[in-house]
């Protein structure tokens, strides 16, 4: 036990050194960092392209059991459709590195999205993980809401039911809906941040 404990502490410290490097990171109530990524159709998207609109960033890995929960239940697609009708730009971002779980060739990603009938504006590929790390994306899903002024107003879990059970969707409080609806009504977004849940992003 002693050895296991010290090993765990040593690993944590080693990781801290790696993460000690200062890199620009997203912060709540601060301008969301711009990025440029290509989608699976080959089109390039920058966050600044959508200035003046609400933008949702959804970190995605279609092999994560937590992402499956929200796609197999239709929850994610319903949200995407509902807010697309309110002119919200919904961007899914896949930060799985090549060779890691959730990284697919574009053709495979298209096939999978068709199967799930995804309603996101675009599915962006971030295989080097640069955008994911800038935003501090840790899990799939991990959700971010950016207002028309480019301010990050919400970051965190999709809802308050950290499980893989599709039955939990109907009784969950959806934080992304809450954030968008509050922002539309000129009300403060609360909570502005929550701890995300899901599988780790496969950087």
């Amino acid at each position, binding site marked *: 036990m002693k050895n296991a404990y010290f090993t765990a502490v040593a690993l944590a410290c080693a990781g801290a050194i790696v993460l000690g490097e200062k890199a620009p990171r997203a912060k709540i109530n601060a301008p969301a960092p711009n990025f440029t990524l290509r989608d699976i159709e080959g089109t390039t998207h920058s966050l600044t392209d959508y200035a003046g609109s609400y933008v949702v960033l959804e970190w995605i890995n279609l092999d994560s059991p937590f992402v499956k929960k929200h796609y197999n239940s239709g929850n994610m697609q319903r949200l995407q459709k509902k807010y697309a009708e309110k002119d919200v730009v919904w961007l899914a971002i896949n930060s799985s590195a090549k060779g890691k*779980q959730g990284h697919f060739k574009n053709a495979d990603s298209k096939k999978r999205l068709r199967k799930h009938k995804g309603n996101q504006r675009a599915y962006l590929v971030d295989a080097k993980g640069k955008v994911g790390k800038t935003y501090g994306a840790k899990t799939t899903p991990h959700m971010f809401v950016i207002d028309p002024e480019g301010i990050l107003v919400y970051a965190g879990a999709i809802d308050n039911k950290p499980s893989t059970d599709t039955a939990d969707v109907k009784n969950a409080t959806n934080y992304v809906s809450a954030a968008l609806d509050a922002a539309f009504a000129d009300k403060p977004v609360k909570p502005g941040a929550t*701890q995300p849940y899901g599988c780790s992003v496969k950087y």
Partner: protein
Amino acid sequence: MGKTVAALVLLASAICSRAPDHGVQKALAGVTLYVAEQSFTPGKPLEIAIVIDLAEHWHTYWINPGDAGMAPKIEWDMPRGWTELPVRFPAPSRFMFEGLVSFGYENRAVILGAVIPGDGLQRDSAKITVRTTILVCKESCIPVRDTATVRLAIRRGQAVSAIHDETKRLFDEARRKLPRMDHSVTAYYSVLEDRLTITVPRDSVTSPLRELTFFPQTRGVFDYAADQAVSRDSDHIAVDCALSPLYTGEASDIKGLLVGYNRQADQVVALPIRAIPESNLSLGGSK
């Protein structure tokens, strides 16, 4: 057995894109129930150990899983009129994987629960079933659902049913790994820029603990992967932690475990901490 588990672990990695087969789930993690006594007395709490055995190199999670993962979900099925007490998790370890930190357990986790038997059973025996849903992870994660059942007989007279020495040892060891609820500590915290310092009165930490680490139970406040700095003076122990860049200052009290190693006892000790904002102290409290 070892080779079988290793083969199945490889298989699980290979099929992670499909729904995991139940047999693979069982090879990655199994749940067994143990009771502290083989018989029960209505109204008297009966301790139950929920033992999760994990395949080599796979882990599962504490009540705060950290950057990723999922806390175990435990559901009880008992005779009508019986009630369960809150389960108690052992002190976790810390796992780093590709820059993300998780809190949890490898090899084996023993979660202690207890039930209070009710009156009015129609039979002289009772069945307790525990359904667990856990997430087990290595490079990929697989949800594992398992059900374990134990049957108990009602106690007659003063007779105490014997339990195996091995079961007794299991309970003794599990209790040693629990947070020391009888030594829970009230601390205070202060925030300066992107750091949060938890200050613990030194006299509340009665045993000499080394390698102190704070495991936050309150979510959304800390940057789990950043290092912690521990300092001591004659009156206080201070743990300096990095705040999450996404922290919004909405937390009031902060809960967690201060975990350290007691070399004399060769034991890891976990002290429950509740830290209140330092500003609240100036309203009438004292350090």
